[in-house]
């Protein structure tokens, strides 16, 4: 069953029309400013949401957005609209916004240079169909039945999208994206469990997601308190993603670095992470959620070794920040939507190093953390609640812990890594292993 039988809108974006629209906007824009960039993103999705063990909501979405950026004598303007027919108003708003911006060093938008290549973040087999999300939901519920818990909520979502980037130097790049994701939450007494999976190709394992969410809910019942003190911890990829994303990633953003907002600003060439660890952005990862041959302003992407063997080697730049501070763009421009200017980010952030067994010795397992966004992004200090804290004993889950607060500093803990586990998980656009840390402060009750 295809959910979108017929629509009365958005038909302006037939492929031929889209090309014509882009050419028109660029031609009209060039009469007003030196350079014009047009960004069009659209897509469709279908999702199903559980309310306990019943599907309560099925949603179909159709999204569309047009973004315009103009540059004139180093003044950058931008605007966006969800109505491509209103492109003229959008173009005028972009030009007008540019007149207010502070002029800066600007060496031009890129020329066309990226050849057409296979799509990296798209699987043509992914179909946006309600029947598929329905099946995924029931498979999660089946997995959850392995433990005596109550499912509280869950969802399954399939989306596909297209992006086109064009500029007045002749760049006309297009790509497609696909994503399938599933998640489930369960509860047993007052112990909750959450798990999810995501994949560009749809190779998610809903049954396993259901089983794991139910396991954590079941396992966490009747945990004991823990005295305040220093402990060895095993951080799951999900917990690591939260801490890296809220503190480390902003600190290697070139704009933060030059604006005085990064603790790592003067640390190039220094050891900032345990010397066994490397962190790099891999935009060419096959079926990586953020994989792309060109960034959000048309600069060819490349692998960026942010940290090599523990040593900080490179920051991330887009064109604007690069031109301003005399650096080359690293192809790290990203857009979160059609409005506003592109920002700096990573495509697929990979955390790597020699693998070991992280569960040989006893430790407290951290499945996820509550409140990572309240960490201090400047200093790296944080104190968060641990989700599903549990002892790891004899390589497996031992006694659960009732409540534990984890306090530390992200920059410090990265130097205290004792080992990283075999295997990895894709969390958002990060590819992360489980890690083991020693001497971490837990505030108990």
């Amino acid at each position: 069953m295809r959910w979108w039988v017929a629509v009365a809108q958005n038909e302006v974006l037939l492929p031929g029309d889209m090309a014509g629209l882009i050419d028109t906007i660029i031609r009209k824009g060039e009469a007003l400013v030196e350079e014009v960039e047009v960004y069009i993103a659209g897509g469709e999705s279908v999702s199903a949401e559980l309310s306990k063990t019943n599907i309560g909501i099925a949603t179909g979405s159709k999204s569309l957005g047009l973004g315009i950026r103009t540059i004139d004598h180093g003044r950058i303007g931008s605007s966006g609209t969800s109505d491509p027919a209103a492109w003229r108003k959008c173009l005028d708003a972009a030009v007008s916004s540019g007149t207010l911006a502070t002029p800066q060093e600007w060496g031009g938008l890129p020329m066309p240079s990226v050849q057409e290549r296979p799509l990296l973040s798209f699987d043509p087999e992914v179909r946006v169909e309600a029947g598929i999300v329905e099946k995924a939901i029931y498979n999660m519920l089946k997995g959850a039945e392995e433990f005596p818990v109550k499912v509280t909520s869950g969802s399954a979502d399939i989306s596909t999208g297209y992006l086109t980037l064009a500029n007045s130097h002749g760049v006309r790049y297009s790509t497609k994206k696909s994503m399938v994701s599933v998640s489930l939450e369960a509860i047993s007494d007052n112990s909750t469990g959450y798990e999810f999976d995501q994949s560009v190709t749809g190779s998610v394992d809903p049954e396993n997601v259901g089983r794991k969410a139910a396991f954590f809910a079941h396992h966490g019942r009747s945990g004991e308190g823990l005295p305040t003190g220093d402990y060895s911890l095993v951080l799951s990829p999900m917990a690591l993603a939260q801490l890296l994303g809220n503190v480390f990633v902003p600190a290697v953003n070139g704009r933060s670095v030059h604006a005085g907002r990064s603790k790592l600003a003067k640390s190039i060439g220094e050891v900032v992470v345990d010397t066994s660890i490397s962190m790099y952005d891999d935009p060419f990862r096959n079926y990586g959620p953020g994989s792309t041959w060109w960034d959000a302003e048309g600069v060819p992407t490349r692998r960026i070794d942010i940290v090599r063997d523990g040593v900080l080697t490179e920051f991330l730049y887009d064109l604007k920040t690069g031109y301003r501070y005399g650096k080359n763009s690293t192809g790290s421009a990203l857009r979160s939507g059609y409005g506003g200017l592109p920002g700096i980010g990573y495509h697929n952030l990979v955390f790597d190093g020699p693998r070991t067994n992280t569960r040989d010795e006893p430790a407290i397992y951290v499945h996820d953390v509550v409140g990572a966004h309240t960490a201090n992004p400047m200093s790296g200090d944080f104190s968060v609640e641990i989700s599903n804290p549990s002892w790891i004993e004899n390589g497996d889950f031992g006694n659960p812990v009732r409540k534990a607060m984890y306090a530390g500093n992200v920059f410090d803990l990265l130097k205290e890594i004792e080992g990283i586990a075999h295997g990895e998980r894709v969390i958002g656009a990060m590819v992360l292993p489980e890690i083991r840390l020693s001497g971490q402060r837990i505030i108990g009750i």
Partner: protein
Amino acid sequence: MNMGRDIRYYDVRHVTGQTTHIDIDNSVIESAGTSFFSTAVVRVLGPSGWGILTIDNYSSPEGREFELLLSNAASLAHITTEPVTLADAPHGVLAVPPMKEDPRDVSLEEKTGVLGEIESSARLPGIVNTRATYIERDEQVYFIDSSANEYSFGICRSGFNIMAVASREGNVQMGYERLHSIHGLNIRHQQEMGRSAGERALSLIDAKAAAGGTMDAILDPELAGVFAHEAVGHASEGDLVHEGNSVLSGKIGERIGSSLITIVDDPSLHEFGFDPVDAEGVRVGRTTIIDQGVVGAYLHNRETLASVGNGVAGHARASPGEAPLVRMSNTFIEEGDADLDEMLEGISTGIILYGSRGGQVDPGRGVFQFNAEYGYVIEKGERKAMVRDVSLSGEILSTLHSIEMCGKERKMSQGYCGKGGQSVPVSDGAPYIMLRNAVVGGSGTE
């Protein structure tokens, strides 16, 4: 309108508008501009549950085209199995309060200049970065449902954030202030907010990391508001209660806290979380969630009111283009009768916490966490050394019992609350409150 056999109810919420933003970073105007949006949500209640379409660039189709849209939504509803019913609820729209100075009448150039004054006022000696952002969102909302309810209104929210960063020998700290409003342009004559952000960042450079542990704590009105929001507000949301994912499920009429504590959510208040009508067309009003320490009511939409009971509908809210969820609006702890001095005198060793960097809750487990911007150690009733990076966590069902004093003066602060991938404007507030034996987190060891 022919609704079709499988459609028990439908509604359409179409939001059009524009967002204006200004970003000034270290005196450079990084961007200043406006973007436009038009997006709609069409909901159909089928034989079981909801079929929903979200559509960018909605063209308000009529007649046969609209019927086709409804039938598309109805076909989605076929996979639902939840037996949804909708409680009856009063309809009606409140007037949106007039703005003192309409931001839409002030040029972007002028607003950029005024924001620049706030940004430069934060640039004190020792400050390495200042950044001011302005956001203005003008929304025109049109709603119609199959019960012949129809309304429209416009609302404009605007405000600013100012951040200052101080740095010394690798120690980097920030101070920030924010002010957002539904009452019109609020950026004029706010240089004091900029200076305050700068001074805070500078003082935090010399502050020590807080030592974690269990201790008595006083929360300022902003942080106590976040406490009400995280520790109680989310767990009272009817959808979570229905799912069994809240420790407040089944607790109506039970005492879960000190009789000093009354916690309210009221979307009709003219604060930042104000809605003239909820996202299902229901009239908005006050809900007393905790009444003198006893669970009084939950927050509901029409569906959760029917399935759970205890409370009123009118708490459905939605970001433009998103389906409505049960949400908080203006959430606060009612005033008590204590003075701050009295609270301080009652503490021999403890901590007083100010400001908020946000928080999070696991409502099913009943554990919450939130973070203060800064605090001071209390020794023998007096404020001593400043501390930074300090959090507070607790268990919902035990923490409210530990509130021993509640101040006389309530103050509301504005923010945005995330749930289900949506972000809606809210305000939280409280008077000063004093808690015994709070779990305070910090990485310091002394």
